[in-house]
């Protein structure tokens, strides 16, 4: 649709998608399309559609993988809300860490990306350094952080003691501090989020800042009234993916708690709960019910955010899918 001809010749009528000048209308090669899409199509049916239906059905059954599923109606859901304190514990932990880490991650990503834009020289070197941690395999990164945050021989507490903190926290070994360890671990791997913000920041036309500074806007005002509004689509995107991701938060918490024996379940999150229900106690039906509640929660969060976006997200071209 970008050719000059199609720009000059108006479409014949609404709904006629092919411009008049298009070379002889080609027959849609359906066989070829089907052939090309088939890997995705069969994967979609076999690994998404069928499993979704099956897990919805299993969520109403008692199912231990060996015997066939046994219909028990809403019992799994009843058990979840009224008889399973671990469910509430996991849900609370997940909500807690999302509420703190999602805004922190966004703020930190903006900050690091902004810091990169201030460099006139050497930006790509710094960018590489900031990005590398996000590439490190999660298990290895978590191992390293359990060492750094080790109360006995970790570097963090050594530094804290040097600057005069008398009783530094026990981090992963202390139920009230372990989540902060995970949050800091997440901030260390900010690289990929930062790159999106960096691309956004570099896209802001310089002329806007120049105009603003001619009008006498100071640095903070420029940031608040030019940068932030233009960044809102990126902020919105990372908030949505952040919420979806945090309900699936598993590996870091699992590895960290298996390194330090997390007896009080302070690093027990929603995805951990599903994992234990399914693969430790083999209550597949109950795990399926938990998974469906997870889906509903993420859907609600996403819809609420989509609803509110009209109030604070500015799309320069006025649409979500450009």
């Amino acid at each position, binding site marked *: 649709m970008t050719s000059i001809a199609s720009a000059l010749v108006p479409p014949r009528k609404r709904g006629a*998608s092919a411009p008049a000048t298009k070379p002889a209308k080609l027959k849609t090669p359906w066989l*070829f399309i089907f052939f090309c899409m088939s890997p995705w199509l069969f994967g979609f049916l076999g690994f998404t559609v069928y499993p979704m239906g099956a897990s919805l059905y299993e969520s109403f059954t008692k199912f231990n993988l060996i015997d066939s599923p046994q219909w028990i109606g809403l019992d799994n859901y009843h058990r979840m809300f009224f008889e399973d304190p671990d469910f509430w514990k996991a849900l609370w932990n997940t909500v807690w860490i999302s509420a703190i880490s999602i805004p922190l991650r966004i703020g930190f990503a903006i900050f690091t990306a902004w810091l990169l834009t*201030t460099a006139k020289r050497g930006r790509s070197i710094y960018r590489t350094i900031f990005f590398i941690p996000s590439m490190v395999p999660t298990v290895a990164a978590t*191992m390293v952080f359990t060492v750094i945050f080790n109360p006995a021989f970790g570097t963090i507490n050594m530094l804290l003691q040097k600057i005069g903190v008398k009783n530094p926290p026990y981090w992963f070994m202390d139920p009230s501090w372990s989540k902060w360890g995970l949050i800091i671990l997440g901030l260390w791997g900010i690289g990929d989020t930062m790159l999106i913000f960096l691309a956004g920041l570099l896209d802001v036309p310089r002329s806007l800042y120049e105009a603003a500074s001619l009008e006498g806007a100071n640095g903070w005002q420029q940031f608040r009234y030019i940068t932030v509004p233009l960044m809102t689509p990126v902020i919105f995107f990372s908030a949505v993916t952040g919420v979806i991701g945090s309900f699936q938060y598993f590996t870091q918490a699992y590895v960290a708690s298996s390194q330090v024996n997390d007896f009080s379940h302070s690093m027990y999150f929603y995805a951990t709960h599903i994992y234990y229900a399914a693969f430790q106690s083999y209550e597949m039906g109950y795990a399926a019910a938990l998974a469906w509640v997870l*889906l509903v929660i993420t859907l609600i969060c996403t819809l609420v955010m989509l609803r509110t976006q009209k109030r604070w997200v500015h799309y320069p071209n006025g649409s979500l899918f450009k």
Partner: protein
Amino acid sequence: MRQPVPNMSPEAWAEYRAGLRKRRWRQFLQMVASHTGLITMSVVFIFPLYLVFVVSVMSFDQASNRDLWPNPFIWHNYVEVFTAVPFLKWTLNTLFVSVMTMIGTVVSSVPPAYVLSHLQWKGRQVTFVIILSTMMLPGQVTMIPVYVIFSKLHWIPSFLPLIVPSFFAGAFSIFLLRQFFVSIPEEITDAGRIDGCNELQLMLRIIIPLVKPAIAAVGLFSFLGAWNDFFGPLLYLVENQDLWTLGIGLNAFRGLHHVDTSMMMTASALFMLPVIIIFFFSQKVFIEGVTLTGVKG
């Protein structure tokens, strides 16, 4: 120094130079501030990596001593890690799964991405939106029936549950490739059609050669995704120690080996080293991929 306007009065000239000096001084201060900030942050980001490599060559006693510099360097750790735990086997397992995943993903994702970007057909937009929305679907919802399928096929424990799904084109890789493909003007494929190319020839001979970097990006992301994966191997490989990958092995390190921080860091270093090396050789592809889709792996 040249005067901006010829024959300025001495006072104006002096004032001009003072203004210039002041501006330069401000710029210099700004540069110092910016680099101070950047260097501080760099130290913060690098420190954990520095610590891994430093502790990995420390003695057992020194590693529990808060030291930040090895004395002496125990390079032998890098030999011992292969004998203390089956590290070579873990590495080969991980490599096998990652390479197979990469092949599967590339082979199966290029055709859908082509069809979704360079062919007009009814339902294309709907299909693309469905693909995008499956990216948002939490894996837990499909996890249990998929596990049941694999267990009925007697594929657990084996590498198959990790490899086979990658041959069914993941949503993320289709999305990433499509974002690259749409940047190729449709005039090129239209011209090919007029010249009598069929669609298969168009895809293989014209489009694929033009998007080699994109294919490299998808291959890399899928390789690293499999290399870094923990949850998949945890579900499908844990029961058979011979199939363990690096992630599973590293997490079980404490149980297999006596608690030895330096040896654990040696293993971690070897685990992350290939990733960092790959990154340095393919930085551009990487950064483009992340910026284009907003997601990593």
